[in-house]
């Protein structure tokens, strides 16, 4: 490469000297007259050769092929014939968008450069760039606090509800229920500060900082925390009151706690909200009723006798409806969030959902065994079966904890719906000069095929219609020389080019050439950030 550049430099130098010796000082800029594959073309098979034709003889200085993964390869094997440069393409070209960046020297030793794009198979978007570093301690704490909140909400508040309404015999479980509620309350409080740290990108050591807590309160999670805290408080102070008060309070805490979940989070922010928020609410409420009843049920069964049998009867009559509603709401949420089947495997969100479904399958297996193998003998009063059922309920509880642990990781995985939405966001820039200004939008604002549109305004913001608008894109950092695309005037007065492929993410230089009249050309230039 160095060698070739060196020779090219000598050529340029020789050319310069020769030129000076010639009497006429002519200016000569070569211009590109043809490319194979054509600029913007999509070809089905990788081309064997790439060719560039110029308006006059040239010799190449640098020829680079930028591959779909962003790597650049220098092309050294070419044949120069007449005014056409035949370049041998590498044999191992992958599918996706390629950029051929060329820099040649025309007869006067003046370098001329440009880029042309072609895609094999279909235009590709760029590979993901490294995301910002993850603060693992904050993340781990957030995860643990999220699990503790689930324990508090489902075992604590849900447990209290079960003891008061469904399984009066499970009152022996009250100490555990209180402990769970207390744990949930502490975790909820703590999670506010952690949420703030996460939002600010601050380390765990800043947890004592007031700004972190303020930031946490300002996120959508702030309201959830407030309502949850109220629900936990209500559950704790009424847990030992008279039956009537405690009954009312446990129901209120259950509704408030489940409602708090619907106030923030990925699912609640999805459209349509009138459907998603109630779905989150129903999902939370039914989990609390079902899961909350498990420990009191285990205690009641351990007591044995009529109380245990009564409790089991009540539980096995009510819970199937609960689980049906729970499953329905859960499926609805999953459908909206994942959007398409493939995302189950290709996204972290989908993987978490798969793991959760696997755990749920195991859980339902235990539930079914409980229901059809143990319940009848227990109701008949067989002591052996009662103890086995008690153990099975403990196993159920363990699996539920694992489900919480898995579900808590969703805090960190944007659902495919949200990722698709973020990727479709347009990128916009406003370029201003004393002669004209342009409001340019890339839709979507990510690498791959995009539509570029511009609204051209006079400096005083009055609209005017130029004769021609051309977008010129280059990426000096990646060695991509200017690519030009003529825009067409639309009925709404904007200028649009829809045959644009941005092959790489990152900062691109956009120049808008505005031909105001036959003889007046304004060039506006600025940088635009293209997302991966």
């Amino acid at each position, binding site marked *: 490469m160095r060698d*070739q550049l060196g*020779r090219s430099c000598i*050529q340029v130098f*020789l*050319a310069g000297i*020769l*030129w000076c010796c*010639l*009497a*006429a*000082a*002519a*200016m*000569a*800029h*070569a*211009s590109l*007259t*043809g490319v194979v594959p054509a600029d913007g073309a999509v070809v089905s098979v990788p081309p064997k050769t790439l060719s560039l034709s110029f*308006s*006059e*003889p040239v*010799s*190449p200085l640098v020829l680079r092929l930028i591959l779909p993964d962003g790597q650049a390869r220098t092309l050294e094997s070419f044949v*120069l014939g007449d005014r056409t440069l035949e370049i041998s393409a590498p044999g191992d070209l992958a599918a996706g968008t390629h950029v051929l960046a060329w820099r040649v*020297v*025309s*007869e*006067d030793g*003046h370098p001329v450069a440009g880029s042309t794009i072609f895609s094999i198979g279909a235009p590709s978007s760029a590979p993901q760039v490294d995301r910002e570093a993850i603060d693992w301690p904050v993340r781990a704490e957030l995860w643990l606090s999220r699990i503790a909140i689930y324990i508090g909400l489902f075992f604590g508040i849900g447990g209290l509800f079960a003891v008061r309404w469904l399984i009066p015999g499970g009152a022996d479980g009250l100490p555990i229920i209180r402990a769970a509620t207390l744990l949930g309350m502490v975790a909820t409080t703590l999670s506010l500060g952690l949420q703030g740290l996460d939002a600010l990108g601050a380390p765990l050591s800043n947890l004592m900082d007031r700004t972190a807590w303020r930031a946490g309160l300002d996120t959508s999670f702030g309201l959830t925390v407030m309502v949850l805290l109220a629900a936990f408080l209500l559950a704790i102070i009424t847990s030992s009151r008279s039956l009537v008060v405690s009954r009312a309070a446990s129901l209120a805490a259950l509704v408030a706690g489940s409602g708090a979940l619907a106030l923030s989070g990925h699912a609640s922010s999805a459209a349509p909200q009138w459907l998603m928020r109630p779905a989150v609410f129903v999902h939370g409420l039914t989990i609390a009723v079902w899961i909350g009843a498990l420990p009191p049920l285990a205690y009641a069964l351990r007591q044995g006798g009529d109380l245990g049998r009564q409790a089991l009867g009540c539980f096995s009559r009510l819970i199937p409806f609960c689980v049906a509603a729970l499953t329905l709401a859960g499926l609805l949420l999953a459908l909206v969030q994942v959007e398409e089947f493939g995302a189950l495997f290709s996204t972290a969100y989908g993987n978490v959902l798969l793991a959760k479904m696997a755990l749920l399958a195991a859980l339902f297996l235990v539930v079914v065994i409980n229901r059809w193998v143990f319940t009848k003998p227990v109701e008949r009063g067989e002591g052996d079966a009662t103890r086995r059922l008690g153990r099975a309920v403990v196993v159920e509880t363990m699996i539920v904890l694992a489900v919480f642990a898995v579900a808590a990781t969703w805090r960190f995985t944007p659902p495919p719906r949200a990722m698709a939405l973020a990727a479709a966001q347009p990128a916009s820039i406003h370029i201003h000069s004393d002669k004209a200004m342009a409001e340019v939008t890339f839709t979507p604002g990510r690498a791959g095929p995009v539509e570029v549109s511009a609204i051209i305004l006079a400096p005083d913001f009055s609209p005017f219609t130029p004769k021609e608008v051309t977008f010129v894109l280059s990426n000096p950092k990646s060695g991509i020389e200017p690519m030009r695309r003529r825009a067409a005037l639309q009925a709404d007065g904007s200028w649009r080019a829809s045959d644009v492929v941005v092959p790489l993410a990152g900062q691109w230089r956009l120049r808008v050439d505005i*031909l105001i009249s*036959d*003889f*007046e*050309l304004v060039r506006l230039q600025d940088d635009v950030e293209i997302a991966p």
Partner: protein
Amino acid sequence: MLRTTLATVAALALGTSAAFAHVSLQLKDAPVGSTYRAIFQVPHGCEGKPTNLVRVQIPEGVIAVKPQPKAGWTLEKIKGTYAKSYDYYGTPTGEGVKEVVWSGGNLGDDEYDEFVLRVYLTKDLKAGETLHFPVVQECPDGVAERWIEIPAEGQSDDDLELPAPGVKLLEAASGH
């Protein structure tokens, strides 16, 4: 590599007679306060297409414009008022040709031609500066080549993609 070098050298050696890529003025300098023959050299068409129309904008300070007719081309002179009145051998001149258009011709991409104007460079023009004549070549299908960029302060023609042809202005000939 030797072949490329030879090709470059050969191309250069032929350079004197070979086509120039830009539209340019054949006479590179002229004194102010004199008549100037502006010979526009059109070396090729637009992106391989033939040229059907050549449009030249007359810069301020250039008066008494007389285009040379060409066989096969329709000549059009667009007149207007100047920014100020100029002295033309004692006659105050406030209006005249501001744009010249040769249209209806067919100059192939692989052909060369010249388009000529006879103009008077007034003494109001500054010697030492370069005077630019923006030129537009129009081809079929709405394609055009526009040599209309004028270098800003500190720029040279080489910095521009589409430099307008220019003539270097010299001091007025003394003793006139």
